[in-house]
């Protein structure tokens, strides 16, 4: 792997940047792998990377039906935080957060991780109570999170309307200052490049159409382009299409796929140097380095695989944003899109074994998968290497929907759920 550095950039500038190495190979798949990962998004690529790096398993293929990082990895609103309520989630998301903090160095790829803080505004007494509870829980878990009052909030975010004149006046906010955002594509590309360098085969334009299962055990997958590829273990990390793959395996998952929409404005001068989320008026926003306002909406209530949602959802979100930031009322929106998110009934993910031996699922991240990318990959790699889950991933088994040990994160999962 060609190491990226300032010196390298200068060296290549002398040859007009025409001699850069390809970032990853484009291999033809082998007939047999130790592990096949279905889904070449952020989570799948991270899984492949950690399998190779931490477990020494390099005979791995990542099968992607489109291009790498072309699904939800390039459709999300890039927020990273770890202030969830329950200990199980705190352990999971904080594990991820700590990996985020060293990620650019580790991958030798600038993922533009920016710890600019994430605010959750409170508009009612109940909002204040539940956020104070969240802050208290996080402190006991050793995770930073604090409350600020409306006056302090106005000083920290001058462009936001924290006055009493708002329709739903802001009473205060919780803020995790280590939280922030990152460059979504770079995360997928960085993991892809690092995994490829360790010998992982990244197979693009390769759609899985069936699974080879005999005696309750998976032996391989059938692809549209390359026929049957054998594998000792198979991991599915396909977000919105998890239900489709589960059907091929003949199992059922407690997830439903919904469209989740986002939109960005035309680029404007810097006016918001942090991330603001409001569960109450239902909208969240940050400003990208290019100057676009990145705005996230909620999910459509019905099942949908179309990567587009209804207009009413966006309209509602824009109302909330204009309510909180009246100065944005005449900003024009540039683009709007949808991704398919697989939501679990308890708003927590599934990282689990399945009734089929050697088949594993990592899904159900719902509306909050981006922040989990490194942690999800790291823990799922452990699951695939050992055949049993890492202690942090153990509570996130499919079994919890039968035992009743749910991890209810509807409060902390935020706006979109």
């Amino acid at each position: 792997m060609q190491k990226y550095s300032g010196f390298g950039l200068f060296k290549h500038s002398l040859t007009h940047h025409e001699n850069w190495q390809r970032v990853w190979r484009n291999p033809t798949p082998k007939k047999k792998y130790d592990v096949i990962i279905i889904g070449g998004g952020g989570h799948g690529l991270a899984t492949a990377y950690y399998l190779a790096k931490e477990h020494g398993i390099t005979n791995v293929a990542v099968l992607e039906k489109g291009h790498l990082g072309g699904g939800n990895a390039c459709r999300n609103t890039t927020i990273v935080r770890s202030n969830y309520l329950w200990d199980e989630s705190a352990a999971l998301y904080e594990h991820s957060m700590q990996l985020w903090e060293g990620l650019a160095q580790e991958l030798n790829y600038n993922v533009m991780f920016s710890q600019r803080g994430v605010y959750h505004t409170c508009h009612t007494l109940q909002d204040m109570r539940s956020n104070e509870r969240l802050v208290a829980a996080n402190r006991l878990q050793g995770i930073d999170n604090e409350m600020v009052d409306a006056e302090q909030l106005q000083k920290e975010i001058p462009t936001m309307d924290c006055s009493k004149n708002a329709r739903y006046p802001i009473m205060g906010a919780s803020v995790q200052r280590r939280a922030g955002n990152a460059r979504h594509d770079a995360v997928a590309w960085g993991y892809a490049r690092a995994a490829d360098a360790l010998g992982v085969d990244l197979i693009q334009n390769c759609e899985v159409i069936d699974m080879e299962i005999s005696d309750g055990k998976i032996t391989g997958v059938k692809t549209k382009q390359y026929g049957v590829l054998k594998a000792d273990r198979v991991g599915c990390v396909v977000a919105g299409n998890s239900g489709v793959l589960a059907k091929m395996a003949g199992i059922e998952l407690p997830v439903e796929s919904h469209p989740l929409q986002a939109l960005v404005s035309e680029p404007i001068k810097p006016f918001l140097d942090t991330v603001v989320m409001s569960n109450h008026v239902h909208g969240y926003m940050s400003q990208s380095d290019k100057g676009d306002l990145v705005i996230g909406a909620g999910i459509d209530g019905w099942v949908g695989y179309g990567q587009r949602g209804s207009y009413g959802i966006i309209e509602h979100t824009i109302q909330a944003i204009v309510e909180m930031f009246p100065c944005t009322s005449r900003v024009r929106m540039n683009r709007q899109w949808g991704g398919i998110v697989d939501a679990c009934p308890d708003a927590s993910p599934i990282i689990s074994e399945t009734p089929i031996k050697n088949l594993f699922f990592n899904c159900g991240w719902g509306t909050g998968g981006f922040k989990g990318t490194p942690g999800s990959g790291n823990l799922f790699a452990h699951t695939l290497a050992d055949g049993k889950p890492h202690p942090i991933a153990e509570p996130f088994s499919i079994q919890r929907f039968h035992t009743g040990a749910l991890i209810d994160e509807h409060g902390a999962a935020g706006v979109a759920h």
Partner: protein
Amino acid sequence: MLHIYCPHCAEYREEDEFHCAGQAHISRPLDPEACSDEEWGEYLFFRKNPRGLHHELWVHAAGCRKFFNMTRDTQSYEIKEVYKIGEQPSVVAE
């Protein structure tokens, strides 16, 4: 934006007036006490999640407030038919 025909009002209305209440035709276990944890879990949490035809329960929340069923394609979002509670669909998902 879906354009939905309410079988009770006998009119097309915009999606904003409606609310989707999830998968249709789920019947409550007849003897809940006798359910195993698996059966109870399946009833509560496991839903069909098809890429294709799907039967859904909808309510005309800002209208007549009555429930009805809908058969809809989850890929193209095309509504195949709507029918009242208690009726069976004529376009059947697999």
